[in-house]
């Protein structure tokens, strides 16, 4: 099991605001996009036979004291230790999400090099990155109606449909209910699906 770092801006996120504005124009009539949050997900994979708990204290120190991951002036973060993070990533009340990753791989070798050079962590094998778009939508019945909003906001198919993911360069995973961490780890570690359909 990996340790997970979730980072989001605490100052106004202009990218998220732009996505909110663009997304509202794509939704069907009667549907609303009330809030949109962008969050970076960083996964710290232990080496085989090693528990993430072995490097987590040092990792927590590195996250807190380095500028590799978080700028505390503008960002806030949650470091989810493997033993404490629970079985699944749970969307916040009233939200659903899209986890997007590069089709060309998720490993950040440069960041791993830099981290290991300045904060050697024993047992850390790799660092993987992805992005989560958290969405608060409302349909005519007052529920989130993610199924209806997803084609407008998810993988881009045309100028009229899709926004947050380009399926030719990114793989994606819908997060409209709790998704197990093991599934998220596999989604990031395995090659992106060749198909243009959701994972």
């Amino acid at each position, binding site marked *: 099991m990996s340790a997970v770092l979730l980072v989001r801006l605490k100052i106004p996120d*202009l*990218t998220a605001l*732009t*996505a909110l504005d*663009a997304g509202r*124009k*794509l939704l069907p009539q009667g549907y609303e996009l009330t809030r949109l949050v962008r969050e970076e997900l960083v996964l710290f994979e232990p080496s085989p036979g090693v528990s993430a708990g072995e490097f987590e204290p040092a990792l927590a120190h590195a996250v807190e004291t380095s500028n590799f991951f978080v700028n505390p002036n503008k960002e806030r973060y949650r470091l989810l230790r493997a033993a404490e993070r629970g079985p699944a990533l749970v969307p916040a009340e009233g939200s659903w999400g899209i986890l997007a990753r*590069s*089709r*060309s791989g998720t490993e950040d*070798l*440069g960041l791993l090099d830099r981290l290991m050079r300045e904060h050697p962590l024993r047992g850390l094998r790799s660092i993987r990155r992805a992005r989560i778009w958290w969405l608060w939508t409302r349909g005519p019945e007052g529920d989130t109606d993610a199924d209806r909003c997803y084609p407008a906001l998810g993988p*881009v*198919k*045309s*100028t*009229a449909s*899709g*926004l*947050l993911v*380009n*399926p*030719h*360069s*990114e793989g994606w995973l819908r997060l409209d209910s709790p998704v197990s961490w093991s599934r998220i780890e596999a989604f990031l570690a395995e090659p992106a699906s*060749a*198909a*243009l359909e959701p994972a």
Partner: protein
Amino acid sequence: MARAAVIQIPGVNCEYESARALERVGIEASILRFNEPASVLSEFDAFVLPGGFAFQDRIRAGAVAAKLPTIERIGQEAERGKVVLGVCNGAQVLVEAGLVPGIHPGRVELALAPNLAPRRQGYLCRWIHVRAGEGPGRATFAAPLPADRVVPLPMAHGEGRFLTADPEVLRIVDDEGLALFRYVAPDGTPALGYPDDPNGAMLQAAGITNRAGNVLALMPHPERAAVLKHVPLDLAGPWGEARRAGVGSFSALEGPGPGGFLFESLALRLGAAPRAAAPGRRG
């Protein structure tokens, strides 16, 4: 006189040099704000989406601009046969709008993904070499270029890797010559990896057209190489030699540069009355 609109979207930064490169070959260029009434666009014969960072590349490069009514209207004008050139960020907009390669109209069939090179990430700014192949876009965008001519051009992008996850699109782009411009080594041999291929694009594509050949998404910047003085003094090859030989000669330095061919080609296509050519190398 042929008229081209250079579309100024918030965040672009190459509109003035694009307009100058067009004016230089006798095309009347107007810089048009993105929120002008779309109906104005019908007055123009061609459209240029210049480089830069439209909407600060938020979400993805080109993703937000692709949804603009102006771009939708440019797509309609392209269907009528008008010429559309997107350079760098403009190329990203065309791809995100589904205008290139446009095999299945209305569908987004490509991405311009982050550059991929060994142990190297992010923005890359330098000169590379391209060659124009045979394809439906040659008559519009590369008419003056001999088939084997290698052209040095500057590139400056972080997300320039043409990519599709659809094997059918890849096959058609390759088979039908839609990858009009491909990265090559300085001697013209195929670019087999970094640095000749700067970003790992499929088919080593630097520029891809639609099937009709009137819309081009081009990652390198021909407008930044439109005149000889744009060429760096230390560039190897004949264009570098011409640049060094031109030192001290205003007229030589104001002559055509390696990227000038593309604008000359547009002028030919649009029937623009060419201005008196300044001395300098053509290529």
